[in-house]
């Protein structure tokens, strides 16, 4: 299968004052097109750091991060921003919607960033994805008028509307109750299967881990386990 992202012997060390804190230590990882991959591990194991590296939000201290056909090494902030704009979608733990924009406008936001000036085309794509995530009726509401689950659905729609190469979700269910968390995982899984979009999400929730088609477990910044999952079929 096509590899959409690859980490080769990646190290990331943070400097806090005079102390150097290694967050990721020699991680190598291939992420294949269409994967629904979970990165699991306890707090401080390096999950978020790896997502940040894959998301071109951070650069490694050493090693190589390849996404598509290139590496993120030595790129300017502007080029990294353009790269994220083109290839990546993000879902955050705390939803991070823009509170002054409606659901529709939040989802439209990344399309504008992609330079799609045609409003008709944008409206069509926004409408389609909102229908897919089950929020067609709530398009004109503000985020504050939605439940946590609904807000995370908007975030998923916002990540998917631009057809990204890779969607990165940092603990997407951590702020949700278990039922809603299950609904969000189902939604992401459906999108993964329907559109073939590659998902990488971090979690420490076993119920979320078992939904993954591949599970990578980290411990102290290193891969402790890398195994195929059954996408939750055994659980169901």
């Amino acid at each position, binding site marked *: 299968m096509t590899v959409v992202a690859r980490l080769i012997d990646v190290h990331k060390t943070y400097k806090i004052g005079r102390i150097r804190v290694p967050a990721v230590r020699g991680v190598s990882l291939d992420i294949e097109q269409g994967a629904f991959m979970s990165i699991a591990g306890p707090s401080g194991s390096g999950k978020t750091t790896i997502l940040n590296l894959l998301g071109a939000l*951070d650069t490694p201290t050493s090693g190589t991060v390849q996404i598509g056909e290139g590496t993120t090494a030595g790129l300017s902030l502007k080029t990294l921003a353009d790269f994220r704009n083109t290839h990546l979608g993000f879902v955050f733990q705390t939803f991070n919607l823009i509170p002054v924009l409606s659901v529709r406008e939040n989802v439209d936001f990344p399309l*504008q960033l992609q330079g799609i000036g045609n409003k008709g085309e944008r409206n069509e794509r926004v409408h389609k994805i909102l229908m897919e995530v089950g929020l067609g009726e709530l398009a004109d509401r503000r985020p504050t008028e939605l439940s946590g689950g609904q807000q995370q659905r908007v975030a998923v729609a916002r990540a998917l509307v631009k057809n990204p190469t890779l969607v990165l979700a940092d603990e997407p269910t951590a702020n949700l109750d278990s039922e809603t968390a299950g609904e969000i995982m189902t939604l992401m899984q459906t999108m993964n299967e329907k559109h073939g979009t590659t998902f990488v999400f971090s979690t420490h929730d076993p119920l979320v881990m078992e939904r993954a088609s591949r599970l990578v477990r980290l411990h102290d910044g290193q891969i402790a386990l890398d195994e195929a999952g059954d996408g939750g079929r055994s659980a169901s």
Partner: protein
Amino acid sequence: MEAAVQAESIPGRLLPLTILQLGWRNLRRNHRRTWITATTVALAVLLVQVAVSLLIGIEQQSFDNLINYQTAHAKLYADGYFTKREELPLDYTLTDLQELRATIEVVSGVAATTPRLNFSAQLSNGIDLYACIGVGIQVTDSDDDVFRIPQAVVDGEYLRSGEEGMLMGTGLAELFGVATGDWMTVLTKTKAGAYEALDLPVIGLIGTGNPLIDRNSFLVPLETAQYMLGLDGYATELAIRFSPTARSEETLSAIARAVDNQHLEVKGWREMEEDFMALVQMKRTGQGVFLVIFIVLAVVGVTNTILMASFERTREIGMMMAMGLRGSGIRRLFLTEGALTGLLGGALGTLVAVAITAYFATAGLDITAMYGDIDIGYPVKDTIYPAVNITVIVASWLLTGVLAALASLYPAARASRQIPVEALRHV
């Protein structure tokens, strides 16, 4: 495989309308803070616009005053008079006045002309003696077609044809302690150098607001002045009023062409009053700088407001950058918020300023209560009328927006330099 990531050619920017929309809604997010900042700006704009309206009104009234009582729109002199006009010489005079007037009055843009004879004199009430400026004016046909002296008569009446007497400036009358009906002695020298004295009754007092006239001048019929100076049929200047639609420069050129080769020179009122115009320009510049500084001080509050907003929205900035919005896009967003705060405050201040100015533009503002008889440096009467000037209003409103945007430069630049991954971690 090792080549650096090549992003596709995608702007990474928001549409201008979205930035405006986002900026406006963000202002409403913390509406109390926005209103406090906007109100500060509004007060500054209000004061600036009222002050500017007053200054424009005073300037316009000054110009009208000069034209109506002193300079007319233009004057025609014999060659050499203009440079020595402050000495009031009698050696450079105009003759064939009727023919000259006929020549000038057919020029396009000219509405009326009138001859005047200016001379130096000493006035006495029998006790005091002061040097003054005497002006001989053509009472009938036609001084009041060019000047507006009859409107400035505050006591007594205007000069009558064939009747000897004088109009005296109110300041001069006060100096002498004389009133309408009192007699004054005019002492002067003829062109030949002979002394001449004549007793004349004060027919009326004039208060023009122009210190040169009110404190230093008296007006007599032209025939009286010609008789005293031995200059029958002569004048020192031909004053000219333009029609309301005339273009000054074109009319001046046309007059100059009409009297070409006659050893005459025509001067527009601005040239005659070039010292005053330079003073006006200097005051404008000084007041302009002061007023801009005033607005700058007011918009400093915008810096603080935008800085606070950028701190509060650090995670949101990180999220937008994570989605691909460039730093320049973040900068634009906060600059827009700053500019909108300035424009909002500017609009509020402008509305109130226009209402105040419009009221006083009709009712007038009596400055005697503030200044009494103190000379405020402009030839205006006791009531001034502020002028509503749309260009100034729009320009100062837009200037407020620009200055508020400039005041937001630092917080906007700071926000745009955020590192997305750090901004997203911000609590």
